[in-house]
Structure formats: structure tokens, C-alpha cells
């Protein structure tokens, strides 16, 4: 095995005038669980379809295991796909669906039977081998689609929003199952999703896409804690944006307050600060705040109860109130609307992002 599992270099896909994917460079390692995350229409599915061979790049090079794919048709690529709609063959049984790929590769019938039964055991569907897809529940269909791809032991498994059609509970348990499975079989997974939580919980690395561009690639922690752009910051989780102006090792807010946050932007240039609500803490006016923390005085303008937490809107004299999240624990004080409070945070939790 040579090179990365999948390597995209300058891959561009245009449909007529529309650029669906714009010069993407991306390297995915062997055994990695990689997620492509983005809103619908961002080009993530097109990227996946180019890897699968359903579409061909307009420009750029696409390698799998170091081999240039060129115009190789899907049936001759060492990858398999789990479709969003599952695309199970409705006229075949579960067994025949799973056996399809092996039969097309002309494997002996004994080996086909062995491998199909083994993979059906893995997804706990051995009992339903003779059922038709229409007789299965959504979760079962999803597992058949997975089994049908995995039985071929591909180098890379491509998954296009495979959990999108399932309800919340099932989706959450399938996330765990999928992650376990991937670790067990050690196959590279490329997982397309618009669900940030799915991407965060399952992936080794995430690539965030928007409008055909790959904006940021990193571990879930990097993506969440250190977003480099406004889009990435707002697409994943809740976020406060504060407009400011760089001023020699610190930034000045619209309210005139200076904060000790350094940027690499030249003085006088406009910057955006991004702050996660759970990084903000509320204190009484007379309470001491932790050393080195930034503080802004304000007034609670709204409180929302979420069961495990409270969300506060705190007016600190800026155009937009700051949103702060506080755990619902006995030792955390609950503030009333109208009450004055200090908003404090560790300057290290502040991200300066580009637009």
C-alpha cells in the first residue's frame, strides 16, 4: 500500500456555469474516519461522488492508494458507497443484495456465502437474510446498505448521509455502532453529513465545506475550539461574534472598551472575535473573577431554560447581546432578567476569525 488512502489535488467540478467543487486539496490517511461537513449544496456530496467515480472532475487529480483514477468507472474502483437513500435493490432479498458485489466479482459461491453470512452476523441481520428491503425497518435497511458495502472489504468506504433518514434516537445509537465498526474493520471511512454533532462525535478529522470550498480541515476539537473563519465558527455549535478593531496588541470594541487580545492583523483593521457561549461565565458585580480573565459589565436581558443548562442574553453595551451558557448545577447561581452581572472569559478562548 502506497501513499494516502485518498488524495485530491486541485479537484474542481463544474456543471455548466456552476462550480460545485472549487479546487480542493485534501489528503485522507489509511484507517481514518474523515467527515465532510457542510450545508446542503456545499459540494460535499459531489466530492464523494467523484471519489466513487459517478462524476469526473473537471480539473485536478484524484488518487486512491496512490493510483490516479482518471476515467476509471465505479465498478473498477476499490471503494464502495453507502447511499443516502440506501439504494437497496427492491427486487432482491437482503442476502442477494449483500452478495451482489461479490457475485459481480465472480467469487466462488462458497466464499460468497461465507462472507455474506459473516457480515450479516456483524450487523445482526442473519435472521432477515430472506426478507425483502420493503419488509425491513429504516434502521435495518441502513444496516443492510452498510453490510452490502462492507462485505467487499473496500479500501475506502464512502458514506453519504447514511443516518439522515433515521429518527433521532436511532441515529444516536447508530453513530456509536458505526464508529465501533470502523475501528474494528480498520477501513477508511469518508463520511458526508450536514449534522455537526454527527461529525464531532464520530470523526478523527473533519473537513468543513461551503460553496464548493474546503474551508478548514482538522480534528473535531480543532474545528470546534479553533475555527478560523466566521462560517466554520457559526456552522458548528452556538457562537457569539463581536466586531472589533485591532489596536496594537489589543482590540477595541464598538463600545470603546479595549480587550487584551492580540491579533496578527495590522492596527486599525476590522476583526471579528468568536466566543463559545459555554466559555462565558456570569458573576455578581461584587464577586472576584479568575485571574487574567476578561470582564465586561452588563445586564441580563433574557433567560432561556434548557433543562441541563440556562442560556442568558447579556447586554454589555454592544449592538448585539452576548449569549452565555451556564450549567444547571446546585453550585451555579441563576440570574434573573434585569439583574446586573459580569461576563468573564479566558482570553485564550477567544478566536479571531476571518469573514
Amino acid at each position: 500500500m502506497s501513499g494516502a488512502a485518498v488524495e485530491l489535488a486541485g479537484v474542481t467540478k463544474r456543471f455548466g456555469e456552476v462550480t460545485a467543487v472549487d479546487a480542493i486539496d485534501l489528503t485522507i490517511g489509511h484507517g481514518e474516519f474523515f467527515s465532510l461537513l457542510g450545508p446542503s449544496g456545499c459540494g460535499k456530496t459531489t466530492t464523494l461522488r467523484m471519489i466513487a467515480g459517478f462524476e469526473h472532475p473537471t480539473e485536478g487529480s484524484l488518487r486512491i492508494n496512490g493510483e490516479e483514477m482518471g476515467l476509471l468507472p465505479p465498478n473498477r474502483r476499490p471503494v464502495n458507497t453507502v447511499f443516502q437513500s440506501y439504494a437497496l435493490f427492491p427486487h432482491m432479498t437482503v442476502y442477494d443484495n449483500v452478495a451482489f458485489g461479490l457475485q459481480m466479482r465472480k467469487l466462488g459461491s462458497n466464499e460468497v456465502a461465507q462472507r455474506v453470512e459473516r457480515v450479516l452476523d456483524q450487523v445482526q441481520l442473519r435472521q432477515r437474510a430472506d426478507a425483502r428491503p420493503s419488509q425491513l425497518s429504516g434502521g435495518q435497511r441502513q444496516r443492510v446498505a452498510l453490510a452490502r458495502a462492507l462485505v467487499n472489504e473496500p479500501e475506502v468506504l464512502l458514506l453519504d448521509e447514511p443516518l439522515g433518514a433515521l429518527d433521532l434516537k436511532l441515529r444516536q445509537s447508530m453513530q456509536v455502532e458505526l464508529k465501533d465498526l470502523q475501528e474494528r474493520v480498520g477501513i477508511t471511512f469518508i463520511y458526508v453529513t450536514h449534522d455537526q454533532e454527527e461529525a464531532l462525535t464520530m470523526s478523527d478529522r473533519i473537513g468543513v465545506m461551503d460553496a464548493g470550498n474546503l474551508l478548514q480541515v482538522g480534528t473535531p476539537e480543532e474545528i470546534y475550539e479553533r475555527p478560523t473563519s466566521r462560517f466554520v465558527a457559526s456552522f458548528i455549535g452556538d457562537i457569539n461574534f463581536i466586531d472589533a478593531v485591532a489596536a496594537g496588541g489589543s482590540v477595541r470594541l464598538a463600545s470603546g472598551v479595549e480587550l487584551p487580545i492580540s491579533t496578527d492583523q495590522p492596527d486599525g483593521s476590522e476583526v471579528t472575535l468568536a466566543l463559545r457561549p459555554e466559555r462565558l461565565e456570569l458573576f455578581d458585580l461584587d464577586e472576584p473573577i479568575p485571574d487574567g480573565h476578561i470582564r465586561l459589565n452588563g445586564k441580563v436581558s433574557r433567560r432561556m431554560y434548557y433543562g441541563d443548562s440556562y442560556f442568558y442574553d447579556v447586554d454589555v453595551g454592544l449592538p448585539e447581546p452576548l449569549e452565555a451558557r451556564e450549567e444547571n448545577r446546585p453550585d451555579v447561581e441563576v440570574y434573573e432578567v434585569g439583574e446586573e452581572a459580569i461576563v468573564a472569559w479566558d482570553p485564550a478562548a477567544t478566536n479571531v476569525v476571518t469573514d
Partner: protein
Amino acid sequence: MVMADLEARAERAASRRGFLIGLPAYVYLILFFAIPLLIVAVYSFATRTSTGATALSDWNLDAWARVFSAAPARVFVRSFLLAAATTVLCLVFSYPFAYWIATRSPKVRSLLLVLVMIPFWSNFLVRTYAMKFLLGSEGPLSIISQLLGGEPVRLLFTVWAVLIGLVYGYMPFMILPLYAALERMDWSLVEAARDLYAGGWDAFRKVTLPLSMPGVVAGSVLVFIPALGAYVVPAILGGGSPPYLGDYIVLQFLTARNWPFGSALSVSVMLIMLIATIFYFRRGGRTL
């Protein structure tokens, strides 16, 4: 870039494959449909010799001039009125019928629908003949009428017999699109109308009827077009006189032997149908 060429090559290969798959059918249709169509158009400019043969020379507009003369115009108008009457009668009888089926439970509905399908799929010629048999002066209706002390039925070979035959033959074409439109309708809209103080009649007039309009348009076009060109029904039930468009054209070929004139008539009828069909597709008939 090299890759761009590859993509273009892949697309060209797929296009070529798609074209080649359909090629036998396209060649067939060009040979046995497009070329014949062209020949008819050419014939409409040819000359009829005194012996009734057609000379493919001395190209002229005589046949077309005749299409717009009085006698054919009467045939056009007669056929148009007959087709319009057929369409209206079909609509009047089919709407309540389709509505009735569409408001039954799904099980009853599919049974009632099969009962529509059986005559629909039965041989049209035979059905028309059955109507002739029923309406004939020696037929069962006449005999019953005479047993009751009345006159024998004298409907056959009148315009009324043709009209009955056309309605009988084409009514399924009206019922099915109407049914499809009504069946597909979201009945909670009617509930919403009732909720907003509409009475049963108002709810029907303001909600059901407008929503079923695509079915009305589709059904009307589907009945009007074939009724306009009808040949078998007038021939069997009307006795061929006075002539309607269909038999008038046939007459030019098999009896009068005026092929140029017959060709010009055929082309005109086709153009009328083409326009009606385009109108139908414009009105969303494709959703049928």
C-alpha cells in the same frame, strides 16, 4: 488541463452510448414515420390527373385551395361541433362519476375502477358494433319498445347515434384523468374550507373544482382530439353520410381517388391535433 479533457471525453462517451442505444428506434421512426409524413406533405402539392392517378410534377396549391373551400369547410365545422358536443357530454356525465369513485373507500374504489378499465381495454370496434346492434331497428331496444306498444327505435344512421357512439367510446378518456386529479387531491383542503365556514357546495365550488381543473383540461383534450378525427364510429353508426373529417379523408383516397386533396386534408387535421396537444402539455397535462 489534462483532466478537463478526460471529463469531456467521458461525457462524450456516455452521450454516444445513449444515442446508440436508441438508434435502432430512431432510424425506424425516421424511415417509417418521418419520411412518410414528408411524402404526404409533398403529395399535397402534386397534381391529380384525369384518370385519378397522382402526377408528382406540376407542383401547385390546388389541393390546399380546396381545403379552404366551402364543402370541406362544412365538414370541418360539422366535425368540430360533433367533437365539442361529445366532449361536453362526456364531461357532464364523467365528473360526478369520477367524484363518486374518488370518494369511496380505497377497496371499493379499486373495484369500481377495474369496472371502468374492462370496457376501456375492450376492442373499440366491437364496442361500437355492440352499440349498433343495440340501437338497430331490429335490435333489442326496438323489440322492447315494440313489445310495449311503441315504435321501433330509429336512431341508427343519424347524428344522434354517432354522438352516442362517440360518448360511449371515449368517456373512459374523460373519467380517468378526472379520477386521477380528484384522487390525488388533498382532501384536508376541503376540511380546511369547511372549517373556514364554507358549506358543502361552496367548498366544492371554491376548492374541489379548481383543484380538479387539470383533470378537466386533460380529459377534454383527450376526448376532443380523437372525436375530431373519428372514423370508425361515424362509419358504423352514421353510415358515412353526411361525412365527418375521418371518413371524408378516407373517401379521397379509396373512392374519389384525389390523393393530393386527401393529403392536404390529412396534414391539416394533423396540425390541428398538434396545436391541441401543445395546448394540453402547456396546461400541465404531462402530470397525468
